[in-house]
């Protein structure tokens, strides 16, 4: 049995959708348990009073990244069939900048806003209303930003290819960066806790 299961026709399309639902349940459950249903907790990463976002995000990223590489190495998963997000230089950066502004204003990102709304956060429900409006505006004015959307198409490179190093070495570098970020996060949180007590 070799993954990805749906791509290799080991499971049917409908089974794939059913499993997507179960994957979603686990995803939503973990996000809520981590406190991602709270906008103040999410925004904390930008002020240093709560670094949960960084810790959960990077731990999740390196766990999945390492797992995918190992699954490929063991022959459990055909990595050439795994979707790698394409790189359109202009829109990757400008889209990210707009989303970053949305994050600091809104206190949520799309996934976490659904978690917040699910447990009754009114600010999350209102944020979701904004999301729909934003996507609608995007679609309505698509002609205006279509050129920007497709500019700088570079295919689907991996970050290691850009830096001229192997996937394994790149993964190791990302893990080291993540651990450095964890260390800094713990330090920042303890400093903020101390200064909070002094005030």
């Amino acid at each position, binding site marked *: 049995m070799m993954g990805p299961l749906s791509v290799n026709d080991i499971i049917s399309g409908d089974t794939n959708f059913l499993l997507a639902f179960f994957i979603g349940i686990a995803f939503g459950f973990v996000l809520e348990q981590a*406190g991602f249903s709270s906008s103040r907790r999410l925004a904390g990463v930008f002020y240093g009073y709560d670094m949960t976002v960084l810790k959960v995000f990077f731990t999740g990223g390196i766990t999945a990244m390492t797992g995918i590489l190992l699954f490929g190495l063991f022959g459990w998963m055909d990595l050439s069939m795994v979707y790698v997000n394409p790189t359109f230089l202009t829109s990757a950066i400008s889209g990210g900048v707009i989303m*970053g502004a949305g994050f600091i204003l809104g206190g949520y990102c799309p996934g976490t806003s659904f978690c917040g709304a699910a447990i009754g956060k009114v600010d*999350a429900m209102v944020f979701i209303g*904004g999301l729909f409006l934003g*996507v609608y505006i995007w679609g309505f004015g698509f002609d205006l930003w279509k050129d920007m959307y497709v500019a700088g198409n570079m295919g689907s490179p991996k970050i290691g290819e850009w830096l001229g190093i192997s996937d394994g070495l790149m993964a190791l570098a990302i893990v080291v960066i993540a651990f450095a970020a964890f260390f800094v996060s713990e330090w920042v949180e303890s400093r903020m806790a101390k200064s909070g007590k002094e005030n």
Partner: protein
Amino acid sequence: MESSSPTKKVRAYMNPYLAGVLLGLVLLAANFISGRGLGASGAVKSVVVTSVVTVNPHAAESSDFIRDYEKGHTGNPMKNWLVFQMMGVILGAFVSGILSGRLSLKTEHGPQTTSKKRLIFAVAGGILFGFGSQLGRGCTSGSALSGLAVMSAGGILTMMAIFGTGYALAYFFRKNWI
């Protein structure tokens, strides 16, 4: 354990590193089972496309956006991996909220601002995030996190742009949060 009222117990949040490992395993499962990462904004897009096409069945002929969407998707836009996944997310978060005693209707905001201002900023943030997620081909889940897991150059760039901009603007919006 902390309690909000004498009768209702609110459980503490999970250790962030444990939550991160579990999140990573969910993302690994998505890749192993379906050959793709997690996402959220794509489901919003499916709903928007469905409503536009329902209101105006000829939208596909007149709108490049709908045509662009239909190029990459066949069949009913609601019969979509991310739509099923997002229905699960809502259920999973709801169950977690019940189990941890966090189910309550409220607007969260910093001590220096009002609920009304918070909600105005939340709409504005949602609009920006909705728009930006379309331009950036995915949000924090679909582009940044899932992109990081497969070491996509574009996904990692988007991740840096999201968090970098958040930090760059944090000072100007501090009254909303601290």
